[in-house]
């Protein structure tokens, strides 16, 4: 026994000096009681820790803690060793063990919180941290610790509670004020946040973090000049601080001093040339200054340094777009849409580029090409009804423009004739009949207006129907274009004539007013209806004429004679009421006579001819349009011989 007693004694002595070998020979024995074994491990661990053998110290502490975790001194020492050796999880477990024994030990909660925080278990760290501060509300450090943890996990309201506690304990601590300011900002109380930040700066003017924080807050609340005052001071002290310079650049940018901002970010980039965000910011400044090429380079640099950030690429697209480099913009757009295919904004941006590119030329021989994104038309067997309609309207519009242009180009008089013809007509009629009738027209008291109301409907009909007659033969070359059909060229002509005559009618009426002999129609709907009806009639007959002319080449000359005869049968320079009844009954078969009387009656309220049959003109017009369109469609392929 004495032998054992000796060994035991030497082991206890060796433990306090950290002599592992001597202890092992004793601990290797089976009959050592657990409490003694744990105690020796404990001693060893402490000694070994002091000697600097941390790994072995941790091993020993582990053994001790496993053997007797419920013993206060052992748990205490083990927690201390674990915590100092970076074994935070085990340290936390040991502290929890201790706290099970002494639940109201504030410092223990603080230690446990620290260990849990270091081990990454923030929830338990926070619960211990809060307990520590609540148990010991007068501890400034405990309150600050709890607040910082709460701030980290984004619970600003609770963080603010502990920060207020800390601030009450030490109102002059700038760091607490800064944290409180940040939490208030998170709680959207920006005014108070700014006030606190400014107080923090006032308390510790040399503190870089405080100043940066205050500057950021001031920028957020649009107080740029105050921000500038603070950040300039910081930059003055910390000349080699890229973060401060970046902030200075932002401040100057917001103050509108773009050049100064550029100088600041250049200094920042000298200090840390690899910062993608700095390049992005610098490129944005260059873009603002209109230095597009440099901006584009900056954006691409930033994108290269940080490929995961799409902002640089998006801005690059804008710069390329603005500087007219559409191919490059499109390439960037392609990359963007590949990385995030669902982003609508990118899609819109690309479409914008494509549209612009469609309108403008870019580069050498690439014209109007939006192939990369366009589905090949193979997929669509037939154009939809609306697409076809759109194409047809476009073609007719193009033909109309061409028609008016050629008219202008063909003769020196051009459109002058369109106006001159009715004017001369009316003048002549007025002169002749003013003499014959001794001063009074059949209706109203103005010769000009009376003849005007005869000539306009007549011209609407005759011009449209005559001009459409040889539309096909005179537009034969255009029919070589597959998109242009005979219908289109005939229709375009008719529309040009009708629109021209309508313009002429309006101009003439305005002219009458200018001369002081104007008269406004009293019944505008009737006026419009008669104009529409006679125009339709003219177009319908025009279609029929165009078809006849294709088979019977002299038809246009015969038609010209017929219209001349029509001139005398349409009541242009007389009123049918002046005729004997039997003649009037024959003349009433002439739809143009009804058109003239309809038009005329919309000007003169007292003129209400009983023979006027509006529906007759309407029906004849509808039938002629239907017939014209039908025979044009049916005989289309025979209307012209290809060149």
């Amino acid at each position, binding site marked *: 026994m004495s032998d054992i007693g000796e060994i035991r004694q030497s082991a206890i002595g060796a433990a306090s000096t950290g002599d592992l070998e001597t202890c092992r020979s004793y601990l290797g024995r089976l009959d050592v009681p657990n409490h003694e074994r744990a105690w020796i491990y404990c001693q060893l661990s402490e000694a070994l820790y002091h000697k600097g053998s941390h790994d072995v110290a941790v091993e020993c502490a582990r053994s001790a803690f496993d053997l007797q975790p419920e013993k206060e001194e052992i748990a205490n020492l083990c927690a201390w060793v674990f915590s100092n050796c970076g074994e935070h999880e085990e340290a936390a477990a040991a502290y929890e063990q201790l706290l099970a024994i002494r639940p109201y030990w504030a410092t223990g909660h603080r230690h446990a919180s620290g260990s849990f925080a270091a081990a990454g278990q923030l929830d338990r760290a926070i619960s211990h941290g809060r307990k520590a501060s609540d148990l010991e509300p007068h501890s400034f450090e405990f309150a600050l610790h709890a607040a910082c943890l709460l701030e980290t996990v984004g619970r600003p309201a609770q963080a603010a509670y502990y920060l207020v506690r800390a601030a009450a304990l030490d109102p002059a601590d700038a760091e607490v004020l800064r944290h409180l300011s940040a939490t208030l900002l998170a709680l959207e109380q920006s005014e108070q946040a700014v006030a606190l930040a400014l107080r923090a700066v006032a308390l510790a003017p040399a503190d870089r973090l405080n100043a940066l924080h205050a500057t950021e807050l001031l920028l957020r609340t649009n107080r740029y000049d105050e921000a500038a005052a603070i950040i300039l001071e910081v930059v003055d002290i910390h000349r080699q601080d890229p973060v401060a310079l970046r902030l200075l650049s932002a401040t100057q940018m917001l103050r509108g001093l773009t050049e100064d901002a550029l100088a600041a970010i250049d200094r920042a980039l000298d200090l840390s040339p690899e910062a993608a965000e700095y390049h992005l910011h610098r490129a944005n400044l260059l873009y603002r200054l209109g230095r597009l090429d440099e901006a584009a380079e900056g954006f691409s640099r930033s994108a290269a340094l940080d490929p995961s950030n799409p902002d640089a690429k998006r801005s690059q697209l804008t710069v390329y777009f603005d500087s007219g480099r559409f191919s490059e913009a499109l390439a960037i757009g392609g990359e963007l849409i590949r990385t995030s295919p669902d982003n609508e904004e990118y899609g819109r941006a690309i479409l914008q580029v494509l549209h612009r590119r*469609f*309108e*403008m*030329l870019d580069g*050498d*021989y*690439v*014209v*109007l*090409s939006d*192939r990369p994104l366009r589905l*090949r*038309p*193979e997929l*669509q*067997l037939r154009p939809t009804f609306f697409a076809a309609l759109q*194409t047809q309207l*476009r*073609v007719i*519009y*193009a033909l109309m*423009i*061409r028609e008016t*242009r*050629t008219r202008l*180009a*063909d003769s020196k008089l051009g459109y002058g004739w369109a106006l001159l013809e009715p004017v001369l007509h009316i003048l002549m009629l007025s002169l002749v009949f003013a003499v014959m009738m001794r001063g009074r027209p059949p209706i109203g008291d103005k010769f000009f207006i009376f003849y005007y109301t005869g000539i306009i409907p007549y011209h609407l009909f005759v011009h449209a129907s005559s001009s459409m007659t040889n539309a096909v033969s005179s537009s034969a*070359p*255009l*029919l*070589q*274009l*597959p*998109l*242009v059909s005979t219908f289109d060229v005939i229709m375009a002509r008719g529309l040009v004539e009708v629109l021209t005559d309508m313009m002429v009618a309006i101009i003439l009426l305005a002219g009458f007013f200018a001369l002081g002999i104007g008269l406004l129609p009293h019944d505008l709907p009737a006026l419009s209806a008669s104009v529409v009806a006679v125009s339709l009639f003219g177009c319908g007959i025009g279609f029929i004429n165009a078809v006849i002319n294709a088979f019977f080449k002299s038809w246009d000359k015969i038609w010209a004679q017929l219209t001349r005869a029509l001139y005398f049968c349409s009541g242009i320079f007389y009123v049918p009421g002046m005729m004997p009844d039997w003649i009037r009954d024959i003349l009433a078969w002439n739809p143009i006579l009804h058109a003239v009387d309809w038009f005329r009656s919309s000007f003169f309220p007292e003129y209400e001819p009983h023979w006027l049959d509006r529906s007759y003109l309407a029906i004849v017009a509808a039938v002629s349009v239907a017939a014209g369109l039908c025979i044009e469609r049916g005989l*289309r*392929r025979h209307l012209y011989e*290809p*060149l």
Partner: protein
Amino acid sequence: MITLDGVSKVYRTRSGRRTVLDNVSVTFEAGQNFGVLGGNGAGKSTLIRLIAGSEIPDFGIVRRYARVSFPLGFGGTFHGALSGRENVSFVARIYGAGLRGVLHYVEEFSELGEYLHMPVNTYSAGMRARLAFATCLALDFDLYLIDEVTEVGDQRFRQKCAEAFRERMQRSDIILVTHNIHTLRQYCDRGAILANGELTLFDDIDTALGRYHRMVQESL
């Protein structure tokens, strides 16, 4: 892709009826360039116009699953009294292409300069052809129809045309009618022979040329 489905076309001439296509059903696939061979008067130009849609077949139907050009270099739509610009604008409007883009391209390509603002009947034949060529290239067609490549302008301009065309052929297909065997070999992957109302497609241009050569010799 262009399909002819039971297409017939007959012309009445002074010497009687002349059948250009007799119940022809073929498919010109997308992504391939065709060269059409045939004797004089066999109806190659009519075939091109049928494909373009500027002529309607007597029977059958031509389906176009692509934007098909009018025959390259066709200047028939030009109105002598209108300026080059106005004429180009007209064609661009017809095809719904952006006016600015087309005009800019034509300005650059045709090298007509101030003449673009002058009436077309003041142009020489070469200038007209340049304008027509530029207009056709300015519009982005999927399939270009070429009926006898007309040589336009001087050596340098021809070079420019060839380059522009080569670039365009990366995106667009062509159907080419020419007697120039060198041109056919250079541009076409596949051949077609039009004779006696029949249109026969061949998988490669050399086979078509060989067959055509034999046909010509037999008929002599």
